[in-house]
């Protein structure tokens, strides 16, 4: 199992989409850092809010990477090759899930750390570092960790949908349809169901303030709910993977 996991981690790290999206994120950070340096006096105390504001990018990247980690394998037929080496499908899917989710978590943390470094340089050069104390560091670390965790959960959503649909596009399409159609319909027709909507819980989890948008729901409860949905989807996808034909 360890060998399989190591092999999957290598594959994840070498994926073109991982490299392209990471490169785009790094490029975006560099460009943003230069623009901020030239146009603003950045206050480092605002860094936790900057992280919250940029989380949507990381959540989208997480969803895409999770989806492509299995969708591309189905599309190209690599799973047939792997299953002729390890026929225990539970192990194969578990290794892929762990590798892609761990990869997304580490990548999210690294990107946020890079963003922090870029903005710290801006703040030290032209802005202000006042208020960047231990409490600020703890808050920044907590927000970054929650964003990374949520990116990982979203990667799980993408992985599960792509595994079930055997295609990356299925996961991306289903995600878009859910966010744009289902959630808006629910908000309009059944507003009392809002506590079960993914985006409302995600917002609460990222903001990190109890009762931000869902009365009676805590940050931890939101995180647990989102993780449970992700786990449920992954278990369903793994169950399907175990019983369906690989043709």
């Amino acid at each position, binding site marked *: 199992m360890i*060998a*399989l996991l*190591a*092999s999957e981690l*290598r*594959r994840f790290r*070498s994926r*073109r989409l991982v490299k392209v999206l990471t490169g785009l994120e790094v490029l975006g950070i560099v460009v943003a850092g230069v623009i901020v340096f030239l146009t603003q006096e950045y206050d480092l105390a605002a860094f936790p809010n900057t992280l919250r504001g940029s989380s949507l990018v990381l959540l989208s990247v997480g969803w895409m990477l999770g989806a492509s980690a299995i969708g591309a394998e189905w599309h*190209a*037929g*690599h799973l*047939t*090759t*792997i*299953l*002729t*080496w*390890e*026929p*225990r499908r539970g192990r194969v899917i578990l290794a892929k899930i762990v590798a892609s989710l761990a990869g997304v978590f580490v990548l999210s943390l690294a990107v946020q750390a890079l963003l922090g470094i870029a903005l710290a340089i801006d703040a030290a050069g032209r802005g202000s570092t006042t208020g960047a104390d231990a409490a600020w560091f703890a808050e920044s670390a907590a927000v970054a960790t929650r964003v990374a965790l949520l990116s990982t959960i979203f990667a799980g959503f993408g992985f599960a949908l792509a595994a079930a649909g055997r295609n990356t596009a299925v996961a991306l399409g289903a995600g878009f349809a859910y966010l744009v159609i289902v959630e808006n319909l629910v908000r309009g027709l059944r507003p009392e169901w809002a506590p079960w909507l993914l985006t409302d819980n995600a917002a609460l989890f990222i903001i990190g303030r109890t009762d931000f948008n869902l009365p009676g729901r805590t940050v931890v409860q939101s995180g647990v709910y989102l993780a449970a949905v992700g786990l449920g989807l992954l278990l369903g996808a793994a169950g399907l993977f175990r*019983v369906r*034909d*690989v*043709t």
Partner: protein
Amino acid sequence: MGLYGGRVDAVIELEGLRKEYRRLRGSTTVAVDGLDLSVPSGGVFGFLGPNGAGKTTTIRCLLGLVRPSGGRCRLLGREPADLHRVIGRVGSIVESPTMYPRFTGRRNLELLARIEGIRRSRVREVLEEVALDDRGDDLVKTYSLGMKQRLGIAAALLKDPELLILDEPANGLDPAGIVEVRELMRRLGREGRTVFVSSHILTEVQQTADRVAILARGRTVATGPVHEVLMAGRAAGLVVRLDDVAGGLRALGEAGIPATSDDGVIHVDLPPGDAARVTRTLADRGLYLTELRSDEADLETVFLELTSGPGTQDR
């Protein structure tokens, strides 16, 4: 005795194997329909059939990639549920082998080798074995179809397998590559391994395999040593060539020997063991042969005779 220990009389056993694919509209496609097959240990076994006969589905069932709808299949004595206990002794290619195009050939093999804990030097050995050692460090996306096929064969050989299952291994290979694969299969068979090779290139199988099974419409229509299948596929006969074909036909007819002429030769409907009777009959009438040989079928003829008819059944 299996090459790597453990007594196994038949390395592949299929009993009434059946596979149906259900479609969304409710109809069913029967890909394999009660297939019985036993592949003995050692040598090259050809698995022949036209497109849609069920060859690849059978191989997928054996490797646990698809679940049979009925019947049983065993690989090295193990049911699909226990496949992981023997998969380390089985190398395989299913259809076109898929590798990561943006990895080098070597890296692809190293990733697979890592799963089984195979040493790195083995990767170098198999790359040499399939003549890819000089291109091993190039990206797979730069490989030709034939090179990808050779890389797939290298992957199948990585485990130093007791049983090789190769699904159309000559696909995409140029004539030199086909000869190389043929030689490789022969050598592996001589080493005591079992090579189970599905193919529609009949001459390849005829030159390589010790035994064959011919599949049609999801069932075995002939199986056994190649020469026996050839004999069973059509009536044995003799081909006679002589200057006076009309006189020869008349003489044979007067002697009660059934014969027909075609393209300047006479086809005699007697087994090769009766050749002396034919020569004596003709010589008694002053007709002397310029050629006498048995009317041997090639595998292609037998294959076409046995497999003619509709392919996969839709219900």
